[in-house]
């Protein structure tokens, strides 16, 4: 084991020192302050990365697809609402105090409501933004370049996530406000303060829901080598959550608490079966979002768990206040936010532990 030492005379060391000090001097020019606190520097780097990520996404061709998808959700949802609103009122199955919110929940002519469309298609918005966040940079070699800069590596992945979340928030709020404003003109329904608050909370829900899928997409882009693989993996998870979880939940609940056969046993198991299926369904972010969103948008929803006839007897039929509706869906909101953060934390740790090399 031999140590290879290069010759270093005093002239060379002197030159090295000069070079270093020249670089320090250059720092002030064109930048403003030379001495920056570590916190400021981190903030600055994050801001630059965030701006870059946002600008790159907005200028990309993918943005067109993204806008088309959001527009489809908006237009279809609005069309369904306008077509089905009168029918819903006449049917008497709606709380007439909150008609404005029906713009987001009413479906018609087999066109799903805005809320259903968001639950089903919203994940694609997150997936579009994050499925190649890390692996495309790795493939193009830009990650090499970026991490060889003197910056904290975690700022790269945090900025990507924040930029994605910001863009989805802009799109969701723009879409929600568009439906609200066009709905206001088309139907003449003026929203009450509570309706506006409920709509705002609902749109925040949408952002968190999409944020979960964005975090999942970034996770797959961190662990998969190719962008196509990570996109497929994301879609597979989406399919599983949207379709197969509910199928499996039914099968598992029936296996654990059978409701066929012996009438007595079936009666006893009915409640347990329902609760088991409901709880298993709630593993899926899709179900969590759909349940929470319909509760927030419909004040007439008074319970989200199984309710017995005994519990119903004597209950006064009225709408819930915003606070009470929020109490019902608070576990959903925190659960969804926690899911988003946990998935992002996994991708964060995975990214930080990875070595930057060609594969």
């Amino acid at each position, binding site marked *: *084991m*031999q*140590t*290879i*030492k*290069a*010759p*270093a005379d005093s*002239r*060379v*060391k*002197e*030159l*090295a*020192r*000069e*070079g*270093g000090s*020249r*670089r320090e001097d*250059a*720092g002030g*020019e*064109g*930048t*403003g302050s030379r001495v*920056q606190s570590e916190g400021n520097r981190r903030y*600055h*780097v994050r801001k*630059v*990365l965030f701006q*870059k990520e946002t600008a*790159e996404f907005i*200028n*990309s061709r993918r943005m067109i697809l993204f806008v088309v998808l959001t527009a489809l959700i908006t237009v279809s949802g609005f069309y369904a609402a306008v077509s089905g609103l009168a029918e819903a009122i006449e049917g008497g199955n709606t709380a007439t105090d909150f008609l404005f919110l029906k713009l987001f929940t009413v479906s018609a002519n087999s066109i799903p409501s805005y809320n259903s469309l968001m639950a089903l298609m919203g994940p694609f918005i997150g997936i579009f933004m994050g499925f190649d966040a890390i692996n495309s940079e790795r493939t*193009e*070699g*830009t*990650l*090499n*370049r*970026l*991490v*060889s*800069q*003197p*910056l*904290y*590596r975690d700022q790269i992945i945090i900025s990507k996530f924040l930029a994605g979340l910001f863009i989805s928030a802009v799109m969701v709020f723009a879409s929600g406000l568009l439906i609200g404003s066009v709905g206001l003109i088309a139907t003449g329904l003026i929203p009450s303060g509570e309706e506006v608050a409920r709509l705002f909370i609902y749109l925040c829900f949408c952002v968190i829901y999409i944020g979960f899928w964005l975090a999942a997409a970034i996770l797959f882009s961190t662990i998969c080598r190719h962008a196509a693989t990570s996109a497929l993996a994301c879609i597979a998870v989406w399919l599983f959550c949207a379709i197969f979880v509910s199928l499996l939940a039914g099968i598992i609940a029936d296996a654990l608490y059978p409701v066929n056969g012996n009438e007595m046993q079936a009666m006893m198991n009915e409640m347990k079966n329902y609760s088991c299926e409901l709880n298993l369904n709630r593993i899926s972010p899709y179900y969590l979002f759909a349940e929470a969103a319909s509760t927030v948008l419909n004040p007439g929803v008074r319970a989200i768990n199984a309710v017995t006839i005994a519990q119903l007897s004597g209950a006064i039929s009225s709408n819930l206040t915003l606070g009470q509706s929020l109490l019902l869906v608070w576990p959903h909101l925190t659960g969804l936010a926690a899911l988003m953060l946990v998935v992002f934390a996994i991708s964060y740790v995975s990214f930080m532990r990875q*070595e*930057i*090399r*060609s594969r």
Partner: protein
Amino acid sequence: MENGNKTIRGRRILCDVNLELYGGTVYGFIGRNGSGKTMLFRALSGLIRLDSGTISLDGQVLHRDFSVLPSLGIVLENAGLYPDLTGLENLKYLARLTRRIGAGEIREAICRVGLDPDDRRAYGKYSLGMKQRLAIAQAIMETPDVIMLDEPTNALDETGVEDIRRIVLEERDRGALVLLASHNKEDIRVLSDYVLRIEKGYVSEAEVGG
């Protein structure tokens, strides 16, 4: 680097590497494809971690006191710039992260490598040689203390090779530590003050030109 070892997927990439390198010197690294030159650069820069051993700079240890070398210019096998941005935009973006230099220095660096800073073409439309030049401009624009160049004259025409050789020598004279990996013996002979051979992860001294 002290007792540097690195194994990837069961293959030893660096074996007990001990190196002491100084500023104001060009170190030429030679070796076959896959001998570990690029991995050595990645390890020295902080892009990958050693399995065992330490890398230190002026008494500070890599991955303990800092995650990548604080003043580093690096060109690896892939230039790694953003294809949709122009050359100037690419360099401006990277310079904004560190805030060490302004637009003047960036333009000067682009001119030094023989490119036009006002070229409005996106980087993706550049020829291979132009991409290589721009990568080198990025590596030198902040006058870093350490410069690592992996095959810097690949894809360059004769003028380009001369430009890059001149730049390497200028950077050395400025006091920078330059690590140069190349299969081009002439580059190694003309530029290197000290030549090291890498073979199956082992580093040994070699003759200039050999």
